[in-house]
């Protein structure tokens, strides 16, 4: 049984879909959820950039709130977090540090007859690097 499900979200329609699946899975497994938003950072720092990051963080917490309420309404214990860094690595490290035993994230459909040459999208990077099971919602 899964006990702690990590759900990285970027507030797109894909995230909404993966949250629905996560709520369902959490209900079946009686697991707790953590909603995670990672703000991708640039290599260099300056004061203007810092203000920009702060506004992104503030917006992220605002957008996380209704998602957390959706979980709570379904009777699911939920935590939220906003962190900064390179998204794929941050998500994988967070899952490991917080001992998540399932990661659910939105992905995209690819036509098998015409696969793209570059498959290194965020969801595939995470699913390759993550140490726990990963469910990609398409």
């Amino acid at each position, binding site marked *: *049984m899964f006990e702690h499900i990590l759900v990285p979200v970027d507030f797109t329609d894909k995230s909404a879909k993966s949250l*629905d*699946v996560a709520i*369902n899975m959490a209900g*079946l*497994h009686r697991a707790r959820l953590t909603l995670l938003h990672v703000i991708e950072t640039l290599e260099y720092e300056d004061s203007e950039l810092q203000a920009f990051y702060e506004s992104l963080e503030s917006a992220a917490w605002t957008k996380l709130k209704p998602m957390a309420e959706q979980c709570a309404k379904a009777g699911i214990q939920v935590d939220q977090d906003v962190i900064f860094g390179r998204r794929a690595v941050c998500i994988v490290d967070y899952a490991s540090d917080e001992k998540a035993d399932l990661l659910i994230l939105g992905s995209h459909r690819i036509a098998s007859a015409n696969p793209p040459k570059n498959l290194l999208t965020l969801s595939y990077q995470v699913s390759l690097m993550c140490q726990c*099971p990963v469910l990609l919602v398409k």
Partner: protein
Amino acid sequence: MSFTHILVAIDFSPQAKAALDVALREAELHQASVTLVHVLQHHPHTEVTYIRGNPENQRGLAAEFGSLQPLGR
């Protein structure tokens, strides 16, 4: 959303066994059916080997059996 049909691709490795365990557990929770699939890789070329030496020379043949070499593809 519940899953109704879970496809498990297996290659008989320990990892496939672990995946199957998870799939069966999820199938039970979701009351889903499970299909196991194993894909046999299609080889467009047949591997051919040859033995150097005189085939009639049984002693030479035995000596060469230990070092079969692919003829190429």
